[in-house]
């Protein structure tokens, strides 16, 4: 029996920790084209087009400011409530969109996954990247209001000296969204119940992620346990700390957020990899 040399081998066993990054790199053009597809086709045949990117956070912030700050009387410190909400919502939206879109990966792409092979992880990765572009546009509107408050009103708004760390924070948030999304998408292939959970779960999660209510208020009422174990809470608080120099962050919070995001991404990738091989039979 001569020695057999095969370049590729398909077998039932899947190496759990073989993430095949080389293969993902080979398909990098596909990643780019998926991002392009998502961005180009989202608002086709709409009149306002990409303006929708701006309308969503703007209107939400207006409503939240009216309801939570003017009616319910939540204090936001030195910062104008509108700016406080806008910063929170913009950041939160990036996480939310990443989570909701990636958690649908297998179900939504069943058609194409059932016909042709490419590294499946390209799909959720493209979602995180295309949402990043959207997030960038939304940051512009935040910047606009930021400048308005800085120069045309008497309130003092200034960023923190560590503002340059903001991209790192976004990266961590992207990792968390991608990781969680991949875990959920893998489980959705078998248990469809999770789709319902995700849509209203994220809605509920927002209220304990410090988007509208600052951490200090939770502390004041003695219910900080509600937000203490939620990494998203720390991320939103940190985002506002960097952008508006408002809020308090702790070393525990930073470490906790970082570790949980990395863990999420790691387990997400492993589970996703395990699922991609036979999900087409279960979905």
């Amino acid at each position: 029996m001569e020695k057999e040399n095969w370049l590729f081998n398909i077998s039932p066993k899947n190496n759990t920790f073989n993430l095949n990054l080389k293969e993902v790199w080979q398909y990098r053009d596909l990643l780019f084209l998926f991002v392009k597809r998502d961005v180009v086709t989202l608002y086709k045949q709409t009149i306002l087009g990409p303006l929708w990117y701006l309308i969503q956070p703007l209107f939400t912030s207006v409503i939240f400011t009216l309801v939570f700050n003017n009616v319910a009387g939540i204090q936001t410190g030195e910062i104008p409530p509108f700016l406080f909400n806008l910063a929170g919502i913009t950041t939160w939206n990036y996480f939310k969109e990443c989570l909701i879109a990636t958690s649908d990966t297998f179900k939504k792409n069943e058609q194409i996954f059932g016909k042709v092979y490419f590294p499946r992880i390209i799909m959720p990765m493209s979602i995180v990247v295309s949402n990043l572009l959207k997030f960038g546009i939304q940051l512009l509107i935040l910047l606009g209001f930021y400048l308005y408050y800085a120069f045309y009103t008497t309130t003092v708004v200034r960023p923190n000296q560590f503002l340059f760390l903001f991209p790192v924070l976004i990266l961590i948030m992207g990792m968390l969204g991608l990781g969680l999304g991949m875990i959920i998408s893998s489980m959705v292939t078998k248990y469809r119940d999770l789709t319902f959970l995700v849509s209203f779960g994220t809605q509920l999660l927002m209220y304990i992620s410090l988007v509208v209510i600052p951490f200090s208020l939770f502390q004041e009422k003695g219910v900080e346990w509600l937000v203490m174990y939620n990494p998203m809470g720390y991320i939103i608080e940190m985002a506002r700390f960097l952008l508006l120099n408002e809020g308090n962050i702790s070393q525990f919070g930073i470490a906790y957020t970082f570790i949980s995001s990395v863990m999420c991404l790691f387990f997400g990738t492993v589970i996703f990899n395990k699922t991609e091989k036979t999900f087409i039979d279960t979905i």
Partner: protein
Amino acid sequence: MMEQQDVILKVENLSKQYRLGSVGTGTISHDLNRFFAKISGKKDPYLKIGVSNDRSIKGASHYVWALKDINFEVKKGEVLGIIGKNGAGKSTLLKILSKVTGPTTGSVKFNGRIASLLEVGTGFHPEMTGKENIFLNGAILGMTKKEISRKLGEIINFSGCERYIDTPVKRYSSGMKVRLAFAVAAFLEPDILIVDEVLAVGDAEFQKKAIGKMQDISSQVGRTVLFVSHDMAAVQSLCTQGVLLENGEIIFSGTSQDTVHFYLNAERKKVTQNLLKRTDRRGSGEVRFSKVEMLNEFGN
């Protein structure tokens, strides 16, 4: 050693099990049973049941083998025709070969890039133009952007959709979509190309063009093609080797001519019945039909 070099794809003891009923591979209780068997070192309890996959007979088990112990080899430059009735396991085999789903047991080993021809416009985005879709589709099939740009002119030319190339694909007719999809795949240059019943939609002119292209690919460039079809004429003219599947097992393999003959003969035996034994005959009996045969253009 020389022979080893020639074999580009080798399928060994390949089997695929499916569960019948509403859930694809099991319920939570089955999952748990599997899990306990796994941690206590036993074999998967649901893999023992081996029932032949005959869709017309109701089986006792909820599990069924869509493919059972498939073994074959394909040499470089060969065109292998895979034929069989509906539900014989052809598509399952192709799905495993194109890595869409994993096998239950056994393995597939191959050298080089495998690409499968998408069914009508899968992966096409209706809102994007033909040209944009060529890039997207090419990338899905594993091409890089550079490769596609280099071949863009040829692809558009081959598809014959030049006039519509900047129009969204949703305005295309289904035939045009197939043409475009096939054109992308034809210029893919994989080492092994898998083609599953795609020619059925195009018109005669395009079918001829597509078959010609596939012949070019195999004979001139020396690439391997796996071709699944119910069109026996196409299988005979295009393929060199053939494999006949029935109920998930290979029951015949040989040259494509032999395989097609075997298949058609086997099918003919099943519908043959002795006219002399029928009791519902009428007439005086002076002249009797002893045999009625229906033949196609090949005399089969």
